């Protein structure tokens, strides 16, 4: 429970709200990258005085992946699919922010019901729940396939923060395994979006139920 950790967690919540509020894909990707960098700084800030080389390297790896590599992959997918750059939401951006406020309240409520977490007054667990809910909401409430990738990334950020709430020290091999999984997932999704777009001339997941033949 230190000031740097709290500040980073608040930054994670703010980026969550802003992603809900934006309609532009490029803004969403940039916000997703900012959130990734914040997540990468989190273990370093949480370790505080006892920062080991391992933690710093892990943080750097997360920042490189979530802050640089993923945004680049997503931007390339947008460029190649030539979309309008708008999200085409089912739920409008204003309503999404209201959903975000409800999600925040729900996250704090869930946290108050859970008794197995080590530090009950910490912000980490509610932020994790909030980020997970935001990620899930983005996946179901946006049409374009690429926003679902963004939602997935945010969901994963939330799960990572939740891992931090349960145990500060996760074996580095597990972390690296998860990150590698994500990298492959985003890579595959990027290719899938490209293929969807080439086959159907759009990447609107709402219309994917129609067969092409």
């Amino acid at each position, binding site marked *: 429970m230190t*000031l740097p950790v*709290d*500040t980073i967690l*608040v930054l994670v*919540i*703010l980026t969550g*709200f*802003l992603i809900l*509020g934006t309609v532009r894909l490029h803004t969403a990707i940039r916000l997703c990258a900012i959130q990734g960098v914040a997540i990468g700084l989190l273990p370093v800030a949480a370790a505080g005085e006892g920062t080991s080389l391992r933690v710093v390297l892990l943080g750097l790896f997360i920042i490189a992946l979530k802050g640089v590599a993923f945004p680049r992959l997503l931007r390339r997918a947008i460029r190649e699919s030539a979309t309008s750059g708008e999200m085409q939401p089912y739920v409008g*951006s*204003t309503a999404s*922010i*209201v959903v*975000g*406020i409800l999600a*925040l*309240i729900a996250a*704090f409520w869930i946290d108050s019901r859970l008794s197995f977490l080590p530090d009950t*007054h910490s*912000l980490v667990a*509610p932020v994790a729940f909030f980020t997970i809910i935001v990620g899930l909401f983005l996946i179901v409430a946006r049409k374009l396939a690429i926003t679902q990738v963004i939602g997935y990334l945010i969901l994963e950020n939330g799960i990572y923060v939740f891992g931090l709430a349960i145990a500060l020290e996760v074996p580095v091999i597990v972390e690296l395994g998860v990150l590698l999984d994500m990298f492959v997932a985003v890579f595959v999704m990027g290719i899938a979006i490209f293929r969807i777009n080439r086959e159907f001339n759009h990447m609107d997941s709402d219309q994917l139920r129609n067969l092409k033949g």
Partner: protein
Amino acid sequence: MNALRFLPLVSGLVLAPFLLGVVNRVKASFAGRTGQPLLQAYFDLAKLLRKGAVYSRTTTWVFRAGPVVGLAAVLTALMLLPAGRHAPAAWSFTGDLFLLAYCLGLVRFLTVLAALDTGSAFEGMGASREVQFSALAEPALLVSLAALARLTGGLGLTDITAGLDAASWEAAGPALALVALALGVVFLAENSRIPVDDPNTHLELTMIHEVMILDHSGPDLAFILYGAALKFWILGALIVNVGISWIGGPAAVSLPAFFAGMLLVAVGVGVVESVMARFRLLKVPRMLWVGVALSVLAFTLVGRFTA
């Protein structure tokens, strides 16, 4: 101490129009112009007070009461306002933050009534927008104040301001920063500033606040302009009181810090107005909802930090 009690009230009454001059100067220097004199708002008020008022035959007493009661409500709100930790408000009691919020609400209500009383279609449109936006700004303002009250344990504005210090920034810094941000959103919306409304526009279709006061003239208009300047001062002072609370020291430090903060707010508004365009009307509710979200977040965070 007794002399300091009236300092926030008197300084607000005297200096509020000056801040509008500062905003204008900043905007002028961004645009490469010399700009109006810094005291232009005072000249305008003096000029308007010397003129007579014209009343349309379709209006009733509501139209005439609007500016007078509006100014009275703003003055009441100003009396509740402290200026930093060492200058308590002229009048304070437990729960006065609600009176402040709803005095400002009363001003808005009367402006809207007076606008509707004229029967002009444009003024009705402006009234509808004003009500829509302020309905969203009000929860942000109240939840922000509630977060401050929860943090300091005081329910009056003077208690809250006296309770905020460097220690509370250490304990709940992010929450206080969020409160300041949320109050900033409320400040821009309530004062009809860019990006919510453009105080300089004179195209009826795009105006919000200005369109509602088109039919007022003479002393009535002076009352409204002066009331708007005071509202600018009040909401700005709320932000400044949060923003300067980390500065310790005696009154000789906190008072200059307060006035420097107010000047900074005016300069900030000038910069925002110079570098930003106003939002499309559809985007304004979204910005206000973000303000509500910020204040709710601050409120929940305060609960965490003080638990």
